[in-house]
């Protein structure tokens, strides 16, 4: 807007054909693009690659645990797998998958033409990619081996002298910096670039979840970056932040890192939750039950989820009072989570359920996250956690919830928005196979862990002993991990295959109600030719109704009714009813 005045005034209009920018190779176009769709797709594709890596590591660890006292994988290598698995699953798959979906979909949903800071988004992606490369390049020399959450002193330079832990810190740090930048970008975009009329109460639920996730990532990502910087200083420049012997405190790292991991947990759940909300409403042909309460619940989940970080520290040497604060925050989460589940089922109830792939995966997500989060409620009760924390029961619940949110929920989102991204629908047959494999795989892998925990199996264990009653559970769990992996791979193969071979989708294959379906599939670089006025939380429904009203027998307006209708506030309730407004500016529907 405020560009300086041109120094050389254009003398005459002319068309200079030889000044057209030369078309560069596609990969350069993509690598340097600031288009939120391209960046979003790169985030999604990269995070799914990391999902495959995480899955490989997980299956390898399960293979080691297939029999008691097994020596299939060396303990040191097991620790390396474990340490990279945690970072890969949460930091390099979970968070960027959600943020990538948000980066692709949220600007479309709010009717923006692009991101507020296009180049920042591209920069964020490269930070993320090089963070991942930094972590995995350590496999060439000395991979990290200080555990999923590398607690000092184990992760300091005395007990982890090799550079692998530095690679972990730098890799996670670079990626987090990228996520924080992308999250800031998304917040600014969604705050400032919404279509006219799209006030906050009309913002679609997926975008709501994207905003809350972004705030959570900005806050907890910054906290973790500080924690990582201190650990890096401790390791390389003789810092004493976490050194108890020198007046530092290892507990400090626990506080900071758990704040981040709680944030990561929320960031892995919420985009899935937002997508499920859209899918459940669209494919049951009903409006979202309690749109505002859902948005409010997302906000509450984001805030309380981060504040509850001390639910992970009930066994730490901190005063009981702090544990009680953690328990209070964690249990307060029952209300927003419960409302979300209630409203999903209330949306489904009485609807006309079209069990297409997105809805199928969304249902799987609701079912598994319900189990996982119920378990988390149990682990946030202090006396229960004193027995169950650190056992495989906690890892079971975390996996139920996060596979529910990030894999089931994320895949539901992928199936749902894939037609928008590529113009083609992903294969339904493979989707069904993948769904059942995933569902069976999740239960087979993680349900036995509950019983193994009762026999005393603790987390991160590379080996267990004969005669401890754990053999059967671990055997079943290992078999399950293969089924789970097959389920994930089926969907990924489906996604790759459908790019060229999927059935052509058209612009609005699900008859959905949000703005992203208003444009072409895939959308043009500028997203929308004309951005419609938004008058409800379901702008596309209004447009469709408007078109129908115009085409089905146009009547001259009745002037006498006009003033009465004008009194009615343009609230959500009024918008979908008969004729409170005569068709938005949606005459231009394709």
């Amino acid at each position, binding site marked *: 807007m405020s560009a300086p005045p041109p120094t050389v005034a254009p003398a005459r209009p002319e068309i200079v054909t030889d000044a057209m920018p030369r078309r560069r190779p596609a990969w350069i176009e993509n690598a340097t693009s600031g288009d939120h769709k391209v960046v979003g797709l790169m985030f999604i594709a990269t995070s799914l690659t990391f999902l495959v890596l995480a899955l490989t590591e997980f299956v390898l660890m399960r293979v080691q645990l297939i029999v008691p006292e097994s020596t299939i994988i060396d*303990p040191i290598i097991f620790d390396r797998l*474990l340490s990279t698995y945690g970072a890969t699953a949460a930091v390099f798959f979970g968070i960027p998958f959600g943020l990538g979906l948000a980066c692709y979909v949220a600007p479309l949903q709010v009717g923006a033409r692009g991101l507020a800071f296009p180049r920042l988004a591209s920069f964020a992606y490269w930070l993320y990619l090089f963070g991942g490369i930094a972590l995995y390049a350590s496999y060439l020399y000395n991979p990290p*081996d200080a*555990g999923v959450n590398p607690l000092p*002193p*184990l992760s300091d330079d005395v*007990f982890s002298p090799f550079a692998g832990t530095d690679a972990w810190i730098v890799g996670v740090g670079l990626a987090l910096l990228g996520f924080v930048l992308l999250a800031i970008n998304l917040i600014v975009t969604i705050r400032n670039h919404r279509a006219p009329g799209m006030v906050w109460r009309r913002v679609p639920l997926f975008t709501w979840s994207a905003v809350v996730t972004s705030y959570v990532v900005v806050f907890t990502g910054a906290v973790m970056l500080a924690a990582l910087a201190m650990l890096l200083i401790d390791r390389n420049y003789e810092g004493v932040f976490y050194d*108890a012997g020198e007046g530092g405190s*290892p*507990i400090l790292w626990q506080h900071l890192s758990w704040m981040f991991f709680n944030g990561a947990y929320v960031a892995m759940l919420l985009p899935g939750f937002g997508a499920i909300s859209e899918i459940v409403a669209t494919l*049951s*042909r*009903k409006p979202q*039950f309690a749109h505002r*309460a859902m948005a409010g619940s997302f906000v509450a989940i984001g805030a309380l989820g981060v504040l509850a970080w001390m639910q992970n520290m009930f*066994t*730490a*040497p901190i005063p009981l009072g702090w*544990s*009680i604060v953690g328990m209070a925050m964690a*249990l307060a989460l*029952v*209300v927003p989570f*419960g*409302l979300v589940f209630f*409203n999903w*089922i*209330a949306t*489904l109830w009485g609807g*006309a*359920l079209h*069990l297409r792939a997105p809805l199928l995966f969304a249902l799987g997500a609701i*079912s598994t996250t*319900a*189990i996982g989060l*119920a*378990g988390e409620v*149990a682990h946030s*009760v*202090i*006396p229960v956690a*004193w*027995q*169950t924390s*650190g*056992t495989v029961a906690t890892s079971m619940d975390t996996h139920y919830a996060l596979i529910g949110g990030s894999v089931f929920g994320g895949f539901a989102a992928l199936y749902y928005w894939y037609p928008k991204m590529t113009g083609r629908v992903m294969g339904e047959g493979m989707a069904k196979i993948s769904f*059942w494999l995933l569902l069976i795989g999740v*239960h*087979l892998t993680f349900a036995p862990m509950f*019983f193994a925990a*009762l026999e*005393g199996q603790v*987390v*991160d264990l*590379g*080996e267990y*002993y004969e005669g401890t*009653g754990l053999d*059967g*559970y671990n055997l079943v769990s290992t078999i399950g991990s293969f089924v789970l992996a097959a389920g994930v791979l089926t969907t990924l193969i489906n996604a790759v295959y459908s790019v060229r071979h999927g059935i052509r989708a058209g612009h609005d294959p699900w008859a959905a109600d949000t703005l992203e379906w208003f444009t072409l599939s895939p959308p043009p670089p500028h997203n929308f030719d004309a951005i419609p006025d938004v008058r409800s939380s379901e702008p596309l429904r209004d447009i469709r109704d408007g078109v129908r009203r115009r085409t089905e027998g146009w009547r001259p307006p009745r002037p006498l009714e006009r003033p009465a209708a004008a009194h009615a506030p343009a609230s959500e309730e009024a918008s979908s009813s008969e004729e409170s407004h005569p068709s938005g500016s949606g005459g231009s529907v394709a």
Partner: protein
Amino acid sequence: MRRPTRLVSLSLLLGLLGLALAAPGAGAISLAPESPHSPNAEDLRSAYDATLLVVSLLAIAINVALILAVVRFRAARDTVPAPVRSGGRVQLRVGMLLGAIALAIFVFGLVVAVKARDLEASGPEGLEASSMRFAQLGLKPPEGGEEPLAITVSGQQWLWRYEYPDGTFSYHDLVVPVDTTVVLRIVSTDVAHRWWVPALGGKFDAVPGRANTTWFKADEEGEYLGQSAQFSGPAYPTMRARVVVLSATEYEAWLDEQQTGIQEAQEAVQEEIEAGTQESAEPEAEQPGDAFEEGTDEPSGGGGKEPQTEDVGPDAPAAAPGGGDVE
């Protein structure tokens, strides 16, 4: 056409689930952890049972509602459902119901947690008053009972070391008298560990720089197994613990025996040092520790730290003055 396939896949899923649950030793399935043998472990068990019930109901309720919704409202073509939206009142009611559940769990958890931290007095079969003070440990003392036995549990890569009030110490096996209140002061000399013996109460972290406390009162003689629950490096799976509960007299006999063993070893070390053959001293010093470790093989390639050999040496002389204090 569709229904049979759905039924088949559903029954397949249920069958597999059943298999998953039934496979590991038929009849051995239990829904509760190891049965408690200490009052605080009993508190934790009651909290576990109640919470398991509530959260299972929550998870089952959501899943049943979900399945019912899918079965009932699967679309026949062209059904157009009524656009139902929710007013705030429903949300408020559901929210208040959930809030009430959460509050109930919170209050219950709070009460049990505080109760489980309160020490109980030693029973009649327990050891007579020990001479150890514990006021600085941050636990509420029992009313009118004997002072409890205070033992320092020290986590090290990858074993547990126990220091008894009279300065005696042992590795791997914690030996305690039955029916006696034992206060554990949990510390770490290297990285973070987590003390856990399921039958005798909850887990507590051993973190360098800050002591943690817990207690138990074993109600039965026997052996109770435990395992560190905090990842601590390559040999972390071997970091198991065993609590051996003896009668009060047996315990005192064991203490004497242990103390003589340690003294003999220290004298042997001292002699060797004086003889100027310090190289062979350290393996010798390991003996008292070895006598009580069993079945725990020190892993090879443990990455540079040898707490066993390093610790017994320096600690052994230190133990003698510690014992002298008590007398």
